[in-house]
Structures are given as C-alpha cells and as structure tokens.
C-alpha cells in the first residue's frame, strides 16, 4: 500500500479541509432548496460581451496570448483603472492578466512568501488567503474585525498585529462576506502605519465596482506613497458578471509583477484567449451594464437588510459587494447549527459566518444575487423558522 500521506506536500496535507464541507455537500444534494448561498451574480454576462467573444472564435483567434495577456487588453485595463480608480499603471510592465482574481491572489502570495513570513489576514474574509499562505510555509495572522467597527480594520489593530516577520497585509475590501468597505480617511490611517514599514499590501478589489449609497471605491494604491508597496487584484467576475470566463488582473510595481508573471508563465502560460477578447469589450463598452446591475443590487440590498431587521435578525448595513451579514446571536444557535437546521427544516441555504473565519461565529452570510421574489420567499421561510425556534424555548 502506498502511504500517500508521506508522499504529498506536507504543508498542503496539513491544511484543514474546510469544516463546512459537510454542510455544502448536504445543500448541494437537496434540489428544492431556496438558496441565498451563492457568491456570484444572477445576471448573465451582457450580450454584447458574449457576442464579441464569439466573433473572435469565428475568425480563428484560438491561440495562446502573450504571457501577461493581450497587449490591447492590458491597455484597456490601464485606461479603465485610471478612469475609475485613479490608478496609474504601465500596461507593458505593471499589468498582468490572470485566471480570475483568484490566480492573482495565489501568484502574489507565492511570489512574496518565504517560510516563516507572516501575512496579516483580516477576518471574516474570503476563504482563499490563509490556505495559500500556509502552503507557501507562511503564517497567516488573523486580524479580527468587529461589527462595532463596521467590520473595518483599524490602524490600531493593524499596528498591534505587526511583528518583525510581517511580510504583507491582505486588504479585502469591499468585503466578502460582510459587505464592509473602507473609505479614504480610514485607508489614510492604514497607509500611515504601512508607510513607515516594508510591509506589502495586496488589495483584493474584486468588488470595487459594487459600492452603494453614493460611496465610491477608493483603492489604497491611489494614496500618496502607496503604489510602491501595493499589488491590486481586480477582475471581471463580479463587475461584468463574468465568473465563468475566469479572468482577472493584477497591478503592481514592476519587480513584483515581473516575478508573478514568471510564475504565471510556468504554471498557466496565458489566461484564456476568448475570455481576454470578451474582457476588452467589457472594459470598452460595459460601463452601462455595470451601472445597471449595481442599481439592481442596491434595490435588493436595501430590501434585504430591512427584511432581516424586521424579522428580528439584526443586520449590519453593507456598503459594498452583494452580501449581507445578519447576526443570529439572538437565536442562541451557533452559525453552523442555524444554517444546518434552516436548510433541513425550511430548505433555505445560507452560509455560516464561520466559513469565513472563526470570528464569523454568530453571523450568517446571505447573498442577494437573487430576484426580489426569490428573496421574499426565502425571508418568509426564515421568519417561520425563527417563530418555530421561539416556540421551542
């Protein structure tokens, strides 16, 4: 018998499989579920983007592209981020087209992490940062954010988390799962801490186009003195409803992007060609689509936040992304118990806050990438569930 455990990469082997796998499997097996559980848009990719991509297939654009991505795409990216986020990156040396924002995150962490390096990871947050840091032999250092601070990291807490081994800070805003954003003044305070150090920042701005209430996304890399220490991750999945196209991009100082490109070249060659052509169309002519989708998300956001508060689950007011993060503490159940029982008893799927780090205990993540009708039905069932819980006690 082969002892696979001794053959496999030990860092990988020791990463705990996510505890909620069981819950996920259960949810996926049930087929009459009213779900508020997915992290991707309900909108399809806008028609003109699909059409432009198909056209390039028709004329035979089926080969690899340059490792860093089509030059024409990088040029459009550089224009787009300049216009939208006041970011200035040279498209020939500071822009890398990746397989989703996901690959950009992976590349950055692998490009900078040496064994023993500490990477500060705010929590609750998206699930991919910690495992990748661990695989590289780095040490993820959780930086817990709290609802009383609107799930924002604070300069003070950041300072306390920094040690001589700190290599980088992950800045995941607008945040999945909380919907929190960071505004300019808050970013300035964080930047002030970082400017005195050699700490790098990877700013995961995949939801940058989705901020609400008149607030626009500010990138930390647009602040004085920050571009030299920041890598910005963005992509097409959420902004243009292009999740399945697997396309994103990384922006950063040439010496870092160069190393990330090297890794990308060996591991991936180049991002999918058809997707890259679709992405050019998205950046050139997709702004209106983004605005429309955002307006629709905003309707739903206001609706769902009020609905949760009305049925007695206190809900933080999210200002970005497309999730809300209501507290379920009042039920006395843990997040896992709440979600499992809600699924089994009412066939409604939401994600336990603990999926995004231990500090997500007491919360559930609810996606509003669903029609208002669908959201109404789901909330109705959650209300019933809460009523039955009350009767039990």
């Amino acid at each position, binding site marked *: 018998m082969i002892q696979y455990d001794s053959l496999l990469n030990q860092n990988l082997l020791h990463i705990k499989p996510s505890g909620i796998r069981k819950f996920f499997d259960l949810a996926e097996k049930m087929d009459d579920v009213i779900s508020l559980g997915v992290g991707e848009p309900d909108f399809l990719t806008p028609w003109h983007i699909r059409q432009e991509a198909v056209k390039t297939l028709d004329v035979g654009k089926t080969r690899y592209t340059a490792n860093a991505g089509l030059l024409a795409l990088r040029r459009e990216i550089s224009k787009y981020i300049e216009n939208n986020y006041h970011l200035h990156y040279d498209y020939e040396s500071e822009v890398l087209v990746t397989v989703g924002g996901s690959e950009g995150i992976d590349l950055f962490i692998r490009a900078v992490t040496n064994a023993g390096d500490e990477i500060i990871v705010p929590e609750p947050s998206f699930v991919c940062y910690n495992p990748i840091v661990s695989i590289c032999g780095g040490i993820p250092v959780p930086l817990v954010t709290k609802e009383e601070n609107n799930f924002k990291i604070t300069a003070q807490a950041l300072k306390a988390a920094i040690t001589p081994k700190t290599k980088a800070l992950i800045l995941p805003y607008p945040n999945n799962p909380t919907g929190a954003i960071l505004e300019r003044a808050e970013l300035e305070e964080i930047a002030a801490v970082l400017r005195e150090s050699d700490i790098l920042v990877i700013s995961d701005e995949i939801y940058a186009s989705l901020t609400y209430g008149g607030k626009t996304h500010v990138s930390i890399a647009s602040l004085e003195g920050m571009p030299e220490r920041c890598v910005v991750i963005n992509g097409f999945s959420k902004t243009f409803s292009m999740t399945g196209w697997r396309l994103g991009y990384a922006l950063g100082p040439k010496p870092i992007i160069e190393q990330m490109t090297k890794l990308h070249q060996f591991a991936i060659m180049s991002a999918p060609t058809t997707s890259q052509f679709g992405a050019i169309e998205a950046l050139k002519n997709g702004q209106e689509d983004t605005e429309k989708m955002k307006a629709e998300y905003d309707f739903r956001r206001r609706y769902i936040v009020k609905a949760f508060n009305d049925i007695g689950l206190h809900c933080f007011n999210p200002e970005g992304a497309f999730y809300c993060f209501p507290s379920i503490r009042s039920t006395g159940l843990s997040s896992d118990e709440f979600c499992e029982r809600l699924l089994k008893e009412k066939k409604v799927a939401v*994600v336990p806050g603990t999926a995004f780090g231990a500090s997500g205990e007491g919360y559930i993540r609810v996606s509003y990438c669903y029609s208002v009708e669908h959201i109404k039905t789901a909330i109705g069932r959650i209300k019933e569930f809460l009523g039955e819980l009350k009767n039990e006690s």
Partner: protein
Amino acid sequence: MEKIIKLLDAHPGLSLEDMATMLGVSAEEIAKTLDRMRKEKIYMGEKAIINWDLVGEGNHVCAFIDVQVQPKLGKGFDEVANTMSQIPDVECCYLMSGGYDISIKMKGKSFQEIALFVARKLSAIEGVISTTTHFVLKRYKDDGVIMDTPEKDDRGNISL
C-alpha cells in the same frame, strides 16, 4: 422620479412600503410622486406578462398590422390612429417611420377572426389606404421576458 421609474420598470407590483425601502425614501414621498406621475400620465399602470402560447386552445392569436394612411390636412395621422386605438382588441397602436404609417398589434380568437376584422372594419376606416397583416406564430420574448427561461438555477445552492 427617475429612480422611481427605474424601480417600477424593473419591479412592477411592489407595495409602497417595499418601494420606499428599496429607494431609501419614505412611503409618503413615493405615494406623492406616483400620484403626480399618474396625473401627468407618465405612469399608466402595470400589466402581467403572460405566455399565451401555453394558455392553449388557440384563443390567443396575435398579429401585427402595417397600415398605410392618407394623412388628413391639419390633423395628420392622429385622427385615424385615435379611431384605431378605440378598438378594444387593438393592444398597441404606433405612428411609424419608414415604409408604412401606423403599426397595430391586435389580439383575437383566431387567425380568421383577425383577418376578417382587418378586411371588414380596419380597412374601412376613412383614410386607410392599405393594410398588411403578419400573424405571430411563436412568442420567444415578450416585454423583455424570455419565455423559455431555465427553471433551475445553474449556480447551485452554495458557493463562497
């Protein structure tokens, strides 16, 4: 008002309270604006979208009719168009640019009923020069809604 129109357009049939929540304003303000919009004939009501093809029994035939009209001095096409709009089975009536003047969307119980109506009534309206009738054979999309939408959400139930 612009925001209310966008919301009505995307989500017809919401209660005042829901509209207020979704726009972040008070229900009174919504009610006032809707009232004004009704008075100014900007807001004309809401209609269900029904896939008549599935209702069956051939009772829901629909036709587009191109009408050429001799415009009247001083009145242009309005008189004829207003007359046609009075016909209950005429669902839409538009003045058009291009090869003909008025476009009509009509419903009826059968092809024959519509065809006879066009021949006997519509063509007889004063000023009508000619009509061309096109019957709808299959509805793919109505009022922005694709009839054959997949029932199942292909995103699955959960992803992070």
